[in-house]
């Protein structure tokens, strides 16, 4: 099967129907034993210090693994991705464009989806066939997410990772489904581990994956991981076709659409506080102004750059914030 790199979540169903094996370049970068090597490759080729580590990591991963073709998201991802696409093209990487239209109109997305399907020469039936297969897998991820906030039997890290990997189903849907089946068996037999604080994680997935386990040492647990959950398409059952599924997806669209879903989950999951992660040099850091104003919940913004573990200062900030948040949960007067 031909491999195709992804820089963000795109309609996997179309690619798989066309006989491709999609793989997420973000995952390839961040799970690498020496992820800094990928950033070095990018900086040696001239990427500035003041640029998002994800972009540089994706570039390094493409070069190191000699990636031949990728899906280039032209609308619905950041402007850094656009220049990354141009540079990769100049290095001989074949770009296949896809857009999440800024208008967020279903007819515009439908037009784009049809173009994308025609480009890969796949029919509606073929795509729906794959969608049905993937929805079976999505249902299992959704079950794990539900258990995380309803039954306290899933760790924040597990839930984060299992949802995150839905961006490419770890390169092999059948094996991933088996992994989920085994996980579910294990999870459903566990005793609950209840932590005092119920946290939500919002923002792009972190470079610092140890965040999830770290907060659990502070009597807290993440019960919601916003973007990771979006990658798994938790509302897939409400979609009657591929266009509707990728229309009801917050990540590439406007802020107002996104914040409504966050507030819904904050209420549903009875969260006590939010950790908002932003990547150094990313425009999304300014969204903290809006999130702080509009979400009706205490919120802490932390920032990651190149390191894939939390630094001492961020740990101290998390400790101080969660310590006071914990006091608030038991106000006596």
């Amino acid at each position: 099967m031909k491999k195709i790199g992804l820089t963000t979540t795109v309609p996997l169903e179309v690619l798989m129907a066309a006989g491709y094996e999609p793989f997420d370049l973000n995952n390839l970068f961040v799970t690498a034993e020496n992820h800094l090597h990928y950033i070095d490759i990018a900086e040696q080729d001239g990427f500035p210090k003041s640029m998002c580590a994800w972009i540089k990591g994706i570039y390094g991963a493409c070069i190191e693994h000699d990636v031949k073709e990728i899906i280039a998201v032209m609308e619905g991802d950041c402007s850094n991705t656009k220049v990354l696409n141009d540079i990769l093209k100049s290095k001989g990487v074949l770009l296949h464009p896809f857009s999440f239209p800024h208008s967020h109109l279903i007819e515009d997305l439908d037009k784009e989806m049809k173009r994308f399907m025609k480009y890969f020469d796949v029919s509606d039936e073929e795509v729906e066939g794959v969608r049905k297969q993937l929805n079976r897998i999505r249902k299992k991820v959704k079950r794990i997410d539900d258990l995380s906030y309803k039954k306290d039997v899933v760790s924040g890290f597990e839930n984060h990772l299992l949802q995150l990997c839905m961006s490419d189903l770890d390169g092999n849907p059948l094996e991933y489904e088996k992994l989920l089946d085994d996980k579910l068996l294990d999870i459903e037999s566990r005793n609950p581990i209840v932590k005092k604080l119920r946290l939500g994680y919002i923002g792009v997935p972190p470079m610092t994956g140890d965040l999830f386990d770290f907060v659990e040492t502070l009597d807290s647990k993440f019960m919601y991981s916003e973007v990771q959950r979006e990658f798994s398409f938790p509302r897939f059952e409400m979609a009657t076709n591929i266009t509707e599924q990728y229309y009801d997806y917050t990540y590439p669209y406007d802020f107002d659409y996104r914040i409504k879903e966050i507030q819904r989950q904050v209420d549903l999951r009875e969260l006590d506080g939010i950790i908002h992660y932003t990547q150094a040099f990313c425009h999304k850091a300014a969204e903290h102004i809006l999130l702080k104003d509009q979400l009706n919940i205490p919120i802490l913004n932390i920032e990651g750059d190149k390191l894939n573990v939390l630094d001492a200062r961020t740990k101290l900030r998390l400790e101080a914030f969660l310590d006071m948040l914990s006091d608030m949960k038991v106000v006596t007067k």
Partner: protein
Amino acid sequence: MRILGIDLGSREVKIVLQENHVTVFKKKISTMAFYRDFCLYDGKIVVDVNKIGCGPFDRAVSTGYGKNNTDLSQFEAINEIKAHAYGSIFQTKMDDYVLLDIGGQDVKAIKIENRLTVDIELNDRCAASCGRYLENMAQVLEVSLDELSTHFNEPVELNSTCAVFSESELIGKIAEGATTEVLCASVNYSLYKRLKPLLNNFKSKKLVLSGGVAKNEAIQFYLNSDYKEVISLEDPQFNGAIGCCYYGSMFS
């Protein structure tokens, strides 16, 4: 409910007793005298509360530098970031601001948003930006600390990073004939310049000052150019102890 709060600082121990959120007793004791004359050692430090003279209390909360130093028998220890945050929330009744606490040998900047700590910066390795520096320089200039703190006009640069080297630099300026007023302003300005890097990431409209240096008029004057509003707490030195009382009365 009567809550006893103790803040064990590097130079002084601050003690506050609040009854129903009102301070009814406060006392400062030098740290050395506190451990020597007011404490017994029985595996853990036991405070002789009768000697302190605060009267009976329902709950006691302590804070200060170093976990072992503040772990007093009968007292619940809380970390000093939280104690200072709560003290300032109680004293200002504000929700969003930056708290700058300048103590004898440490400085803390704490960003409060929605009554929660969201960012912290502490001095480490060096105490040249703290109250002790001002005390030493006042001694060199043979002026009182109160006198020193009133001067802020036309400071000259004292460039040394090190507080000890600054003393020789100051003596050099004395020899050049600078007036006492200018020298005092220079000392204050050099402290302000050392604080600046710590505050770089702490942008806010309001700055609240606590700790012994909060009443320093010159520091207030310089900081006024960086913030829309600079507020000195009414009881700046007792802020940590007041925070202990607030914690004790609000949270179980």
